[in-house]
């Protein structure tokens, strides 16, 4: 019980840390990493809560959800990294600059 709670709380902590980093850092690579940290936090919570069923065998459904979630996170990160390169090539900076008015 207490180990499971520890994992779940760590997950929530990672989520919050990631959110903080996402808001504070300007560089896009750091923002993408921050979102990945947040994602890991959510997955940790899911897996940990799956271990809280009464029997010795943990609930498999959250595990399946986490696998789906990881697939989604990997593809989203790939798209984000590709976009990051294009943004840097087009604007010269890897940051979200304000709209330039023509």
């Amino acid at each position, binding site marked *: 019980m207490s180990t499971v709670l520890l994992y779940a709380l760590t997950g929530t902590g990672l989520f919050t840390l990631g959110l903080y980093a996402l808001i504070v850092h300007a560089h896009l690579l750091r923002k993408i990493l921050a*979102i990945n940290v947040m*994602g890991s936090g959510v997955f940790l*919570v899911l897996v940990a*809560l799956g271990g809280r069923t009464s029997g010795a065998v943990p609930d498999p459904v959250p595990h399946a*959800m986490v696998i789906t979630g990881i697939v*989604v996170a990997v593809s989203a990160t790939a798209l*984000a990294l590709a*976009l990051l390169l294009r943004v840097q090539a087009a604007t010269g900076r890897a940051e*979200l600059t304000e709209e330039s008015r023509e």
Partner: protein
Amino acid sequence: MRQIPWEVMLILLPLAGAMACFLLPRRTLLLGLITALGVVVCVAGLGWLMLEQGAQRYAVGGWGAPLGIDLYADGLSLLMLMMTALVGLGVSVYSIGYFERRQAALFWPLWLLLWSALNALFLSADIFNLYVTLELLGLAAVALVALAGSANALTAAMRYLLVNMLASLCYLLGVALLYHNFGSVDIAILAQRVEPSPAVWAAMGLMSAGLLLKSALFPLHFWLPPAHSSAPAPVSALLSALVVKASFYILLRLWLEIFPPAGAALGQLFGVLGAAAVLWGGIQALRQTRLKLLIAYSTVAQLGYLFLAFPLGSTLAWKGSLYLLLSHALAKAAMFMAAGNILHFCGHDRITDLDRVAQRLPVTMTAFALAGVSIVGLPPSGGFIGKWMLLEAALRDGQWWWVVTLILGGLLAAAYIFKVIGYAFTQAGMLRQTSKVPMTMEWAALALALAALLLGLVALWPLSLMEIGLPFGGESGG
């Protein structure tokens, strides 16, 4: 067991079409149009079936709810699917003229993927499946925004992607909490088991925050105007008409089925934010100098109206909000298409330099004006019916302050629409080179604008479709 599983076809057909378009870039136009027509036929088939047999539940692979994936369609899902099909068909026809060959080969696979994700989202019966479809939708939408290729579009796409990922993670954390507490992700099962507790409140807060961010409710709308205005015109139409509605649809579902007793205070908050969005969006739209940005801020304002149903919570209010959603989808798609035509024709979209486009592009300006009628909410448009229902619901409930918002919002909308139409009739200082606009682009915009208007004339028909499966509760609300 019936013969054709229309729900599955609605998801698989555009998916297969997207793959085919990706693999055969030379035949992309033909394949894309065939797929688009096929999807429309499937929606019609599902609609026909539901008129006869009522709401449909389909267990994919025969597994059933707790373990497998269920697809569920009631009146609410059906209307969203029909809206998507209608706007989708319009955008498909429009894109024939808009994109040159190389860009079309990139546009079609992404657009069909987006369509597949939208259909899957409107048919999903469990909250985890909704998460997956929401992500698919987001990825396809971001790629479509980046299609324009300019520095502005790429930056807007990047911001859009980050917002999307953040919102999805908030939503997923909420799903984790709900699953942990009630042992299911199926909406119908959750609806029976949920009871108010701190965990439910946390889940509700997280999921609502994620979905509000995606639906761009004021003050979380910051990402919408740059993304919607810098994308290519058909993509802007898709984003404003359909993609933002998808997350609103999920919120509506959760609210109606899972959270009914809990949300009175949160409902008031949504209403206040919605009212602020109506006013702020309207004022910002009025201040814009570029046509596409004006239309994008108008979307922010119109999305605000949809949230006015939350504090009222009566069947009539939900129906009004849904009616407004449907007519806004048609009208706003037409408006972005008209803006795309003007941009194509003049080479810019500065409102003060529109230079007599009304005379030179009569069909496009007619489409813009007719769409404007629905956006402002003048009779006999679909926007009028939706607003009227919201107004009546507010008066019945004695919450007159929402009526003030509705009227002020209408006045602001009238001001920014007439500003554009006025400049379209006047002569600008210097003459510029113009280029010809293809027929398909002009008529697709007009067809959707007429559909928005028509929605006001045949109001009984969509209202009776809303009754299928009683998504808004049992009481009859005029």
